[in-house]
């Protein structure tokens, strides 16, 4: 492509010829744009253009924009008819953006918005919890609009289907707990107490926490993604316009399922963790299976066991609430579903840790 330009005091003349494809000479274009801004007349003379692509069109469009914005005259001669037509088409704006240019606002406004958003999030979360409570109340009274099949599907998703991963992770946690404890206990010949350490640790809290973490990543994330996608597809709008309470239809079956299965999964995680500990005790520490069993049974007491189950029950509610809350409040695009899922998992884990702290302190005070 041959592109030359000449200037005098009143006009800029640009001559173009040949094959005008992939024109990307930024330095030359910048010089031409500066001259175009400073001279009242711009002439574009084209001769024998054998081929052209969007790069030439973009250059001529930029020149035309400069001329239009600064009330300069621009003339084209010898351009292929379709090229001239496309320049005219590009300059014909049929609509202008209606949003303000500075969408982020000033820092003070941004800070205010940040605070306001936090306040609104808290209000929304409490409102959601209140609606779930009233939905649960309707369920107890037998007036909730919940399909039995939805409940069974939710129950299936968070019961036996979760047992495999739960078994593996809990077994490994029990194993790790036994290893770490054995290193210390071995130094004063008390490795037999590995059985007590693992049993108390798993039944009182570790089993429930592992079940909670696994289920928030597995089931809580799935709730947020499923309900979020329903929000994107306007299915939740359809439910609302049909007068079906979203809480009854979407949240209640999921929450009930986790309330039922989480304590059971916690018990399973307790036993798999103890099994992992026994594996280390018997295989690595030369403790006989009978001896390990005896110390495990001695260490196991009903209150520890029930505390663990209670944790599991509370974690089930937290996971269901977080998953459903972020799903229902998801945005309207694909990206929002990812954000909702992440938030659901992170919030559930944080809330479970906070809940563990509160429950532990409360039980300590009560002497349980």
């Amino acid at each position, binding site marked *: 492509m041959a592109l030359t330009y000449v200037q005098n005091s009143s006009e800029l003349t640009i001559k173009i010829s040949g094959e005008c494809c*992939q024109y*990307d000479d*930024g330095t030359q*274009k910048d010089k031409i744009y500066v001259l175009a801004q400073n001279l009242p007349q711009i002439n574009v003379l084209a001769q024998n253009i054998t081929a052209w*692509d*969007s*790069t030439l*069109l*973009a*250059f001529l*469009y*930029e020149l035309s924009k400069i001329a239009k914005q600064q009330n300069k005259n621009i003339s084209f001669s010898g351009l292929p008819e*379709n*090229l001239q*037509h*496309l320049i005219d*088409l*590009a*300059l*014909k*704006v*049929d*609509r*202008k*953006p209606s*949003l303000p240019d500075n969408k982020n606002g000033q820092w003070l406004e941004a800070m205010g918005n940040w605070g306001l958003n936090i306040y609104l999030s808290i209000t929304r979360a409490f409102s959601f919890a209140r609606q779930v409570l009233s939905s649960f109340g309707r369920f107890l009274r037998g007036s909730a609009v919940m399909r039995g099949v939805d409940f069974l599907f939710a129950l299936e998703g968070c019961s036996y289907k979760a047992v495999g991963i739960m078994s593996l992770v809990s077994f490994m946690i029990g194993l790790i707990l036994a290893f770490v404890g054995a290193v210390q206990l071995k130094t004063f010949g008390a490795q037999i107490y590995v059985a007590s350490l693992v049993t108390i640790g798993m039944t009182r809290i570790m089993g429930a926490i592992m079940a909670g973490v696994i289920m928030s990543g597995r089931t809580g994330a799935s709730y947020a993604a499923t309900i979020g996608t329903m929000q994107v597809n306007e299915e939740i709008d359809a439910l609302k316009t049909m007068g079906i309470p979203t809480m009854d239809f979407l949240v209640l079956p999921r929450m009930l399922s986790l309330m039922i299965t989480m304590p059971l999964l916690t018990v399973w995680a307790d036993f798999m963790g103890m099994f992992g500990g026994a594996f280390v005790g018997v295989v690595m520490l030369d403790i006989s299976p009978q001896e390990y069993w005896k110390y495990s049974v001695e260490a196991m007491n009903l209150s520890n066991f029930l505390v663990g189950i209670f944790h599991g029950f509370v974690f089930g509610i937290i996971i269901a609430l977080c998953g459903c809350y972020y799903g229902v409040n998801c*945005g*309207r*695009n*694909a*990206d*929002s579903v990812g954000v909702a899922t992440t938030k659901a998992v992170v919030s559930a884990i944080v809330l479970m840790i906070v809940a563990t702290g509160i429950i532990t302190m409360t039980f300590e005070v009560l002497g349980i």
Partner: protein
Amino acid sequence: MMEAKIKVDDLTIAYGDFVLMKNVSFEVKKGDVFIIMGGSGCGKSSLLRVLTGLVPPAKGNVFINDVNFAKASQAQKDEVMKKCGILYQSGALFSSMTLAENIALPLQQYTDYSDKLIKELVSLKLALVGLTGFEEFYPSEISGGMKKRAGLARALALDPEIVYFDEPSAGLDPISSKLLDDLIVEINQSLGTTIVVVTHELSSIFAIGTNSVFLDADVKGVGGIGSPKELLKNPPNQKILNFLTRGEKGNA
């Protein structure tokens, strides 16, 4: 004789044992606005998916720029698809990117252009579809019609030789639909781009189509080939007349 940009030869599309269409053959000439039409469920969109290499044909060949898609390697398909643009039904813009980023993506991926030139090209493509100044908007901030136009701007980013449209009028009001039809004709005439449109909107079919194929769900194949106006004037069968007149003249 005009060069065939797309040649479909004895094509069969099947999902497992279910045969959707068979013995489909037609050609799309360079510079055509070619309409793939037919009733709901006749396989229009599936045919488009085969033409764009998303689904392999069960049998037969699809030649695009003389490359046989049915037998081509993925690298060959990618090379052909660089010369093709696609406007999906919903626009299919990436929601986490601004319109400018959406349009810049193929340019950054397939060209060595400077950032400044890419910015100019993005601005030009948006201007061509009537979206000047919308560079920094996200897809969620614009209307359905604007999303389609932005999708078209992205489809045109690499100066494609062929542009496919999947139901361009779906979900649009009559005025937006007409504006998009006008834009399709502008692009076809100004850039010489070959256009393939999947639609069942009669107003669009007659306004923009220079050639067409009618897919018949009952015979699981081609019901007729020709320009829409010609098919209306001399319908090869009752079903085409029914379709092209919304059943007003065909129900004898």
